[in-house]
């Protein structure tokens, strides 16, 4: 049975890591795919908790 991928904490304002430009992915190796699975699990977790993700909303253009 595949191991359940766990969601990771969302970084919030003040966390210095939010200011670090991300590195290119390059090859889609096992480590990258594991990160991708965790990222997806995190998104799904947010969706489950809040009932929506950012793409479900439209901002008023006034």
């Amino acid at each position, binding site marked *: 049975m595949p191991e359940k991928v766990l969601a990771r904490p*969302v*970084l*919030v*304002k003040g966390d210095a*890591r*939010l*200011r*670090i*430009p*991300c*590195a*290119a*992915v*390059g090859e*889609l190796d096992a480590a*990258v*795919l594991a*990160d*991708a699975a965790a*990222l*997806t699990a*995190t*998104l*799904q977790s*947010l*969706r489950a908790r809040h009932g929506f*993700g*950012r*793409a*479900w*909303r*439209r*901002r*008023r*253009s*006034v």
Partner: protein
Amino acid sequence: MRRMIAVDLGAGPFVMFDPETTWRSSEMFEVWDDCFSVPDDLVRVRRHRSVSVTYRDIGGRLRRWERLPPDLAELMQHELDHLDGVLMIDRALDETAIRPVAERGALVDVRPRHRLSLAAIAEAAGSIAPEFRGAPVVTSETLGPQLGCRLTLAIETLNPVGCFKGRGADWFVSRQVAAGIPATLVCASAGNFGQALAYACRARGLPLVVYAAATANALKLERMRALGARVVLAGDDLDAAKEAARQWAASAGHHMVEDGREPEISEGAGTIAVELLAREPGIDAVVVPVGNGALLAGMARWLKAAAPAIRVFGVCSRGASAMEQSWRAGRVICHDRIDTIADGVAVRVPVPEALDDLRGLVDDIWLVDDTEVLVAMRQIHRHVGVVTEPSGALGIAAIAALGGASADNPLARQHVATVLTGGNLAQLSLLSHDHDAPSCG
């Protein structure tokens, strides 16, 4: 940390690896932005109204997501900023542009839901009658190269009603029964929808009355009757028959079922896209025949949420182009007459709901003439061994008309899929090369 974005537009998540912006519109717009990393604030920012991006998908394939609509363009700009260490608060327009999230209700509109439910399409994909699911999806190794692309065909001719409409009809009738809505149904049909609805009604013991034009395909009329429908001939074309059906249903107190108006019918058709993507996730473009637009809407709804880099094109008959003109104009345009051998797509009065369902989901709609359709039918027969009726060959006709490997063909060398939508051909002589002057389907 590495450059990847997870996105879920409602049809399941996907990950964009190494996304890059390749184009930005000069037009800008202002929006209230929000962010889970800045959970207490809304921020007024200025964004490009549209962008194009490239990325690699989970299979390592380069995807080009072109000219995003404003809401998704804003989303991508926000997420790409994150990858560069930029937060929305860095883009606040001025000192009044950062507001407490508690003001959201006054500042931010909730996007109205699309009429076609992605959850319903997913549910239908697992629950419509099994004889309509899992249709063959094949790659033609000879026709594709001839058309200048890698060609995948979803073959919807090999089921009990010989066309794709069994999916939507089955899903619609199952929902009607589940909701306990009165039993007798009435519809108008050129033949394929009537067969599909008759099949679904028969399976559940529901009576059905089908109105068809006096000029309708004799084979389809015979099959509708064989499936238990009472068939009434009225008017000279589908739209005239539809008006007669509507009047009779209202007077008799029965439920008029209009293909394209009922969302469940489009959702059922959308299951073709679910199966297609499951089999061929690397598709670049999908080309879909258009009659009333229910098939195109259902498929495009799923494709643009599950794999939005896929371009979705519709194809109308040049002799029945009301939907194409309506889509371009953004309003219903009715025609006085139709002139095509493709009876299955011969719509002259578009359904407003079906037209609205296409908004924002379709990249273009093309026209093909009957001669191109005839050639396509023969190509399909020769290369794939499948008989299609004229409307079932519109996709291949359109792909062929783009000019093969020529530089200005938007599908050249792409992985292209189309649906062979139906095989209820009354006049087999249309497949013969000595029949070049089409007169009927």
